[in-house]
């Protein structure tokens, strides 16, 4: 499956603007709507912030075409580990991901969050 973009980045708050910009560019190139793109950007940054709060220090984000059209995203913690207990903020972030994206799949221990935005997004 041909990827749109792969990013490897240190998990720091100041990196989130870069992530949002890159995610927005990919969503636009994939033909997503303005709202769909904004939702996707929100989900990507929420995923990374979630990993950061759990104790991961670096991550890899991959954007690739979803099998049925649209865009799929896979964010994975590459350095550090899920050492911190889940907070209320984490619960809200997870619920937000589930509300906005489709097929949300989370492995809390390995630090993997995958989701997709279908063709209609």
């Amino acid at each position, binding site marked *: 499956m041909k990827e749109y973009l792969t990013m490897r980045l240190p998990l720091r708050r100041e990196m989130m603007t870069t992530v949002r910009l890159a995610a927005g560019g990919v969503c636009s190139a994939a033909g997503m709507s303005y*709202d769909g793109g*904004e939702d996707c950007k*929100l989900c990507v940054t*929420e995923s990374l912030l979630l990993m950061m709060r759990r104790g991961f220090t670096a991550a890899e984000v991959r954007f690739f075409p979803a099998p049925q059209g649209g865009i799929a995203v896979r964010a994975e913690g590459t350095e550090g580990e899920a050492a911190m207990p889940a907070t*209320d*903020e984490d*619960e*809200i972030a*997870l*619920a*937000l991901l*589930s*509300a*906005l994206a489709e097929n949300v799949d989370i492995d809390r221990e390995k630090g993997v969050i995958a989701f997709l935005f279908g063709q209609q997004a």
Partner: protein
Amino acid sequence: MNEEELFRAYRETHDVALRNEIVEKYLYIAAVLAKKFVGRGVDYDDLYQVASLALLKGVERFDERKGLKFSTFITPTITGEIKNYFRDRSRLVHLPRRVSELRVGIKRASEEFFAEHGRKPTAKELAGMLSVSEEEVVRCSDAGGVVSLDVPADREHEGMSLHDLLPAEGDMFETFEDRDALNAAVRTLGEQERALLKYRFGEELSQMETAKRLGVSQMNVSRMERRVLQKLRDTMKKAMTE
């Protein structure tokens, strides 16, 4: 009381004080979620209000016996309400992103200026605060309004509606009639007003460029333009109803 006990007590008593306690306890969720949707052309205050109302409704619907945490239950509810709000309200007129953002900036800068100086800022002061041109400030302030086609087209709120004034597509007679009425209306304008029309709508110059040609300020052009267009509307309306 913990979360489960709070909700159980409220479900059994429907005590308003208890409901308020629950809402206050979880109001931070509304704030957190509202913040996440800032930057899409709707002010934070509006989003926070929508989110808070959704929280209030959610408290009524939540059933702690189903074993779900309240934050897990309420997040999609609030998110859904915010998305509905975007769909129903903010997209009536789709403004370019820069215009939307500048409108938010203008509102915020105006409030800050008022708090500091006790008066509203001028367009020039706002432009300075936001590092944009005066013209951008004026244009953004006017952008985004929605009016019904059924509203009266005149200020006296009587007579024809905006819908009545819309030309039928391809109606050559109406086009000819409009042009004739417009020519007559333009003849009633002063020399400077006619020059303004020529620069703004003939040569499509910006308000700033027009101001330079006329030797007046850009704000003057803005005010004059509004006045001239109203004058033309009034004259044409009068001619067409006679």
